[in-house]
Every structure is written in structure tokens, then in C-alpha cells.
């Protein structure tokens, strides 16, 4: 009762990164509240899934394994979650701000009449005083998210309703194993007793999923290009720089929208969040929505023809110049100074 719950996103028996990140966050929230961390696995052929998640500090793993539950459909998964949450009364429930979590979360929150905050970038525990109602809350979940096109950051709370629900974007939090031999308890459920024919009304006819190929999130160096790179051909220069430095290539939304680069490389509020040790921003002006996804980089180098570009305010080194000129020079200098 009143524990911290994480919904696990599972594809082909593999738990998604975002879910592991949430387990790590959930573990620390549970510690602060002196509660347990519980995880929910809904799907099919989930044998052995516990071995994968217990090391993240999961105390209880709820498993609903049934052929109707894979691949994900909204109505089946929401039915199982709603029934389980009615029974378990979580204090906090977290899911990924993915196409699954953002489809499932609102439906579950509506059925339970609990508040839901989308796309959080940080979660904290803190007190709250409602002066009007003369009520003090000891430890609420602070759900922190950018809003208004990224121009403000809002802290949202749900004082009265439970669970306090939030979705969190992939890559914003870190995943960490607590102990390889952490032991939790498994609870199995027979989903058939909850599912009605109406829950199966939406059928998947066709499905093409791609494994995510690029891994900018975990790369220690990111070379990112923006609209100022000017063309797909010039982006090849960035790929070349990235390959000599052992880096991944990222992009701003303007570069993606202009077709210079694939969407799965987009960094920022509506892309992935990265925190590499070196971020090279090339032809990127540094609008807030982009900066939101890279400001925790340990070091930032900007290459921009405009010395007053906003990105230069957060750059450790601002190279003022044309990227077509600067990038080849960097490649040459790097090669000349390493074996």
C-alpha cells in the first residue's frame, strides 16, 4: 500500500531504458519516503523478467502475463493497471513519456481521478502548505517540467489525489543498478479475469517497429548540428568529425525539420536529453528548447558565425566562424596531434 510504482515498458521481452531510468528514480523517491519500490510488467512471455529488474532495487514485481497483452494496446494495459492500482493504492506512479506512456497515462489517471503531469524533467519530494485550506503536506511529489514552449519551468503537485502520476522523458534520468543480487517478491496475476471483450476492441493489423539505432544519449561526446550547417552534405562533415572523435551526431529541431538529419537524433525539449562530457554545437543558435536537452553537458564548444548567438553564453569555448571552414580544421588538428 502507498508505495512507489513504475510501469515497465517491454518490447520483445526487453525492458525499455526509460523504465530502468524510472526504477532508479523510483528507488530514490521510495527511500526518501520510506516506502517500497514496486514495478508492473504487463505483456506476454515475461519469464525471467524479474532477473532483469530486481537489481534496480525493486521490492515487488507485479506480473500480468497473457497473450492478449502483447504487443501493447491501450485498453488492455489500462484495464490491468487500473485494477491493480485500485487494489494497491500507489502513492506515486511513474511511466515513460513515450508514445506508450503518454497514451496509457491519461486514460489511467482519468479512471482513477488522479492528477497526471506529462513530460517531467525532474522529480523531487518536498513539503507544501496550502494557506487557504490551512493544510500542510509533509512530502508531496514535486513534478517539474518545462511548459509554455519551454520558456518556463513549472513545479506541479497533486495534494489530494492518489496516485501522484507523472510521465518522464527518456534519457532525462540516469539508470543505476543498486545491487546485482537485490531480492524482490514476484506477484502473478491472471489478466483474463479483468479483460472484457470491449477491451479487445482495437486490433493491431500491422506493425513495423525499428530498434533505436542511434545512441546519442549514452555517448560521451556529441557533435550537434543546427540550421546553420546549411545542408545535408555539410552534415557529413559533422559525421566525419564525430567518427574521428568517437562521438555521436545530434541535431537541433530546425536541422531535423529542414531534412539535414534524422528525427531520432534530435536533442532538446522534444528530442532526447544528453549530458556528455563534451558537446560541440555547430550552427546552433541555442534556443531554450534546444538548450533544455544539453545544458548539463560538462563542456560546451560552440561554432557559430554570429559571435552574439545565445549558445555562446553557455559555451566554454565559442569559436566564431563558418562551420565549413572550422570543422575541417578541427579534424586536421586532431589528426595531427594524436597518433
Amino acid at each position, binding site marked *: 500500500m502507498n508505495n512507489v510504482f513504475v510501469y515497465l515498458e517491454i518490447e520483445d521481452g526487453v525492458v525499455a531504458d526509460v523504465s530502468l531510468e524510472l526504477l532508479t528514480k523510483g528507488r530514490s523517491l521510495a527511500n526518501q519516503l520510506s516506502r517500497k519500490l514496486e514495478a508492473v510488467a504487463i505483456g506476454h512471455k515475461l519469464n525471467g523478467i524479474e532477473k532483469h529488474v530486481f537489481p534496480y532495487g525493486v521490492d515487488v514485481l507485479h506480473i500480468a502475463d497473457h497473450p492478449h497483452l502483447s504487443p501493447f*494496446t*491501450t485498453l488492455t494495459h*489500462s484495464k490491468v493497471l487500473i485494477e491493480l492500482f485500485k487494489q494497491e493504492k500507489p502513492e506515486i506512479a511513474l511511466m515513460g513519456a513515450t*508514445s506508450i506512456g*503518454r*497514451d496509457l*497515462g*491519461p*486514460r489511467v489517471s*482519468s479512471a482513477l481521478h488522479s*492528477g497526471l503531469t*506529462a*513530460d517531467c524533467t525532474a522529480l523531487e519530494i518536498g513539503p507544501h502548505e496550502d494557506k487557504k485550506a490551512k493544510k500542510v503536506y509533509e512530502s508531496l511529489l*514535486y513534478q517539474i517540467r518545462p*511548459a*509554455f*514552449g519551454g*520558456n*518556463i*519551468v*513549472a*513545479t*506541479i*503537485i*497533486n495534494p489530494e489525489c492518489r496516485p501522484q502520476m507523472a510521465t518522464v522523458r527518456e534519457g532525462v534520468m540516469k539508470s543505476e543498478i543498486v545491487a546485482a543480487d537485490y531480492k524482490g517478491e514476484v506477484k502473478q496475476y491472471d489478466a483474463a479475469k479483468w479483460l472484457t471483450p470491449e477491451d479487445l*476492441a*482495437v*486490433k*493491431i*493489423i*500491422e*506493425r*513495423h*517497429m*525499428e530498434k533505436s539505432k542511434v545512441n546519442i544519449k549514452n555517448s560521451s*561526446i556529441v557533435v550537434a548540428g543546427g540550421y546553420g550547417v546549411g545542408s545535408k552534405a555539410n552534415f557529413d562533415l559533422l559525421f566525419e568529425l564525430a567518427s574521428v*572523435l568517437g562521438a555521436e551526431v545530434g541535431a537541433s529541431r530546425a536541422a531535423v525539420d529542414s531534412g539535414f538529419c534524422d528525427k531520432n537524433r534530435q536533442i532538446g525539449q*522534444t528530442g532526447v536529453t544528453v549530458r556528455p562530457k*563534451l558537446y560541440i554545437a555547430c550552427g546552433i543558435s541555442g534556443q*531554450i528548447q534546444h*538548450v533544455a536537452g544539453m545544458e548539463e553537458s560538462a*563542456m560546451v*564548444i560552440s561554432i557559430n558565425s554570429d559571435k552574439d548567438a*545565445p549558445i*555562446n*553564453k*553557455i*559555451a566554454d*569555448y*565559442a*569559436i*566564431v*566562424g563558418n562551420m565549413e*571552414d572550422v570543422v575541417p*580544421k*578541427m579534424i586536421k*588538428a*586532431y589528426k595531427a*596531434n*594524436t597518433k
Partner: protein
Amino acid sequence: MGLKIIVLAKQVPDTRNVGKDAMKADGTVNRAALPAIFNPEDLNALEQALRIKQRVKGSTVTLLTMGPGRASEVIREGLFRGADDGYLLTDRAFAGADTLATSYAISLAIKKLGKCDLILAGRQAIDGDTAQVGPQVAEKLGMPQITYAEEIVEVNSKKIVVKRRLERGVETVEGPLPCVVTVNSSAPVCRPRNARLLMKFKHAKTVTERQEANEDYLEMYHDRPYLNIQEITVNDIDADREQLGLAGSPTKVKKIQNIVFQAKDSKVLDATDEDIEGLMKELIANHTIG
């Protein structure tokens, strides 16, 4: 037989073009300086509705928006592009609603409009980027939901086939009607205003707007009933007031912070060979690269 389609559309501040004057001197957002627009993905939803109307003879497209009086602009904009009619859900009692209280009010208004076959919404509104109202309306009406629609492949009075655009791929699903479908920005853009419809609906107004403008064209609105944009207030829907507006919203905003860049001590370098070579050597020496 035609389908009765409801499109949920929201008027939003244009957060995509937050210029310098959009931030006040104290660093807070100056909402008044931002133009109010038709939420972009709701236009994608409207286009899907209009396409169905062309495909399935006898279908009608009704816009429903919840907001202050001036949100009637959204309805006129929809009429100019081919919607048949529209309703403005407006009342002080709805003010300050979060997504749950919003979807509660909208779901009751939909019930009041009578039987419908298909509800189309945008995936998300650009002021909050939450993407919650569509699914929550579906849940409150007890209907299935199909999110992230890129294309409505097929639809008849019994079922709908939708191609969905997901992060890592596409999925085609088939579901029964009635249901709620939310539409992505990757779906076709909305057709422009139609000159003939613009002329026809130029004077479409709500009663409140007509009173405010002190207009006395009673006859015109009597002879052309399609110029009446209907308002729905809290008294028209069968609502539990506890669940409406700010009071009915489980989520509360505790704090708002404006984003200000903290300038770092940055070193400005020229694009000369020496400067760049110097930088690369430094990065190699301190093991940032190499």
C-alpha cells in the same frame, strides 16, 4: 449513412514564436503579447474530419472548443475551412481547469450534443504539450482511443482503420465506432480558408459577441441561423461542480520559474588555424577527447 464527427479544437498562445516582447521586464511571460492561434495539431484533426466528410456522404463536422469568449475565433476559423457548425463551451466555472477537469467538462458537452460517431482531437496543445485531453475524454465517455493518427485509412459507420505514427515505427489498427482519435502533426496539413465559406460565415457570432458589439442585426441571425455560434455554459451540462475548474483539478501549480540563461565565462576563439589547433591540443591534453 453519414457520420457525425466532433472535432476538439483549442485556442492557444503561439508559444512557437516567443519573441523578446513576449517576456516582461520582470522575466514573466507576457501572454497578452502572444497571438492566440488555432492549436496546430487540431488543424490536422480538422483536415481528417473534412476528408471523411467528403468521403462518406451525409457526414457532418462539428467543432467544440472550451475557452473564454474570444475562443469563438477557433470556431469561425473552422467554419471558413469547411466545418458545418461549432459550439463554444464557456463559463467562469471552467476557469483554471487542468486536463482532467477540462476533459470532464468536454465529455459532458459531447454527451449533450447527442449521439456522435467519431471524435477527433489534436495529439497535444502547444501551450502545455500534455497530450492528455484526448485520451481522458475517451475514458470519460467509455470509448476506445486511437492516438497519434497519421492517416485514417478507412472508415464506415461501424469501424475505423488508422495508421499511427509512433516513436520507433508505424502501426495500423482497427477499432469500432464511436471512438476518439488524436491526430499527429505528421498528418496532412489543413486546407486553407475557402473564399466562399469566408463570405458565408464572416458574421458568425455567439450571442455574447453580438451583445458586446451592440449589433442589431436580429433579422440577419434569424434568417441565417447558421450564423449563430452556440454557447454551452455550466447550466447546460449535467455537471458535478466539484469536478470543474480550478477546484476540480487534482494538479496544482506550486511554482513557476522563468528560464534565464546564466552566462558562463566563455573563451571566444577566432577560426584561425592556430586557435583551433590550440584548442584541440588542450582538449587532448586534459583527456576530454583522444
